[in-house]
């Protein structure tokens, strides 16, 4: 896997982390863990406590609610944010549909992380706003 992209380089290319300086990026890359999930593995489990905040480095995942796929996620997308921010149990499953590498932060660390990097919080807020707009558009 010599072509495997270093986490830091990968994060540097993501909108979420676009405002960070190189030293900040390096700190972020070391703050997150890197986990791998093979195709078919569940990452987020509906109703299970203790999940995290995940940013996809490479691969694809599906968001499933009650057996129905409601969204697909790929590089640069993040998930687990709602349950981590609200301290609630996940309301959907997220399953790897292709081998998936993620940068992972435990839910307990997300608040502190976003306060330390407010530009990431702003980027995340915009992404959530787009997600909400798209849902409303779809519903309309």
């Amino acid at each position: 896997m010599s072509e495997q992209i270093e986490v830091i380089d990968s994060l540097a290319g993501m909108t979420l982390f676009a405002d960070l300086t190189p030293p900040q990026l390096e700190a972020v890359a070391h703050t997150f863990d890197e986990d791998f999930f093979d195709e078919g593995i569940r990452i987020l489990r509906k109703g299970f406590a203790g999940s995290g905040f995940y940013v996809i480095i490479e691969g694809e995942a599906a968001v499933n609610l009650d057996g129905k796929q409601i969204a697909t996620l790929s590089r640069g997308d993040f998930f687990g944010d709602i349950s981590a921010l609200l301290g609630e149990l996940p309301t959907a499953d997220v399953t790897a549909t292709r081998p998936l590498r993620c940068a992972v932060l435990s839910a307990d660390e997300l608040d502190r992380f976003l306060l330390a990097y407010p530009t990431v919080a702003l980027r995340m807020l915009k992404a959530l706003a787009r997600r909400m707009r798209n849902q409303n558009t779809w519903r309309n």
Partner: protein
Amino acid sequence: MAELNERPFPPGEYPVVVVGTGPGGLQTSYYLTQLGVKHALISADEQPAGMFQRFPFFQRLVTWSKPHAPVEKTERRNEWYDWNSLLSDDPALRGSVIEFMDGSSYFPSRPEMEKGLLAFAERAKIAARYGCRWESTARAGDDFVLTTSDGEYRCSTLVFAIGMTQAWKPDIDGIDLVPHYVEMKPAKEFAGKHVFIMGKRNSGFELADGLLPWAKQLILGSPRPAKLSIITHSTSGARARYMQPYEDNALGGGHFVLDAAIERIERTADGYRVHTSGTTKPGVMIFEVDEVVAGTGFTTPLGDLPALGVKTFYQNRLPAQTPFFQSATVPGVFFAGSVTQGSIGLKKYGIPSNSAAVHGFRYNARVLAHHIAETRHGVKIERPSVEPGRVVQYLLDEATNAPELWNQQSYLARVLNVDRARGITDEGIVPLQHFVDAGGPDAVAITVETDGTGDIHPALYIRRDGTTEERVLASNPLNDFATSEHHAELTSALKPLID
């Protein structure tokens, strides 16, 4: 059984080949033998004990073995108090590390650990072919062919217990100029020197703690703030016994623990110049020091396994694995020992398993041996019946006492299958991820978990009609989960399943 000083397992064909005679390889071989699975155990080393022949550098482990535990060393429960001895079904073989400890610390010294492992290997009559180095790996139909320094081995099941003990350095300009942890000089050679230690995990803090009496000034630097075990509620954080340098930093004593990205290292006439850039507090910092040591961690010596198709992650330092420690991409290739941390499990609350250390991976080895025996070599594993009236007390006793559940929290579970026709059967200790994701008949699993606040409690997973639900039980100030309140809570939770 061959004696230790003979050279058993000559090259040839075996059902299973296990590579490595550190604690992971020894434990796997022990249980494969118990289950009647024929295998060859080979090792590049000249004796058992793996990395404990050399490390830790400062000669004392961070994992406890309590000589005066609340229970006898021959009891199963004692495994929670003795993190370093290998497991055995024979009580006489248990607690072998404690036996050699001199009482001056409840953390064994490196020689005490080594003696305990050697004694276990000898008493359990674990035969191995020492001085036999694995060189390359190839497929041959459904089999694998291992080329070693002694010749070729052919098998259908391969287990690599090769340790995550090879020096690893990040890609930093000039880092090749400085020694790694594994290349450390004796501590006294740091007397009166300014020393920069790269890394703030256990190996970095171990070096700093060991050099405190010698160095004039210590600077520990890495981009991420130090994670401490007492804050993360996990052994993955830097351990409390290495915290003296951290306290010195906190009190302004002259040693420093800094959050800084290391940009490059230069040689100077008298030492090194380390260029850094602050992360949590921005700013350029340049240090002129006499010595630099890279406490930057370790990688797995995977040899040609990635070329065979073994998928890796974590900067290629670990092979990706299934819940039963099989390569995620090459069926038939399994891992044991500290490399099993590549099977990450649920990692609830961000807390990893203890698979990086003996107290975690010794249970993985037993699970692995059972899995290999049953699924690949036709061994029938007995599953005892459990009377419905005993279920609640049994599960609560397990949550309170089972060393598997305490040492591998949220990772390994005690599982009971509930079948209307066949009754309730004890499925043994099973990876929690397998239980919650693989589906199966109605069943209940119990684990112990520590949540983000540090609260330790049992967690219950009830699978009914193909859907698994999680239910967290109450904690207890004395970690007694077999109280009448727990009994009532669990009885109520299981009512739909066992009635």
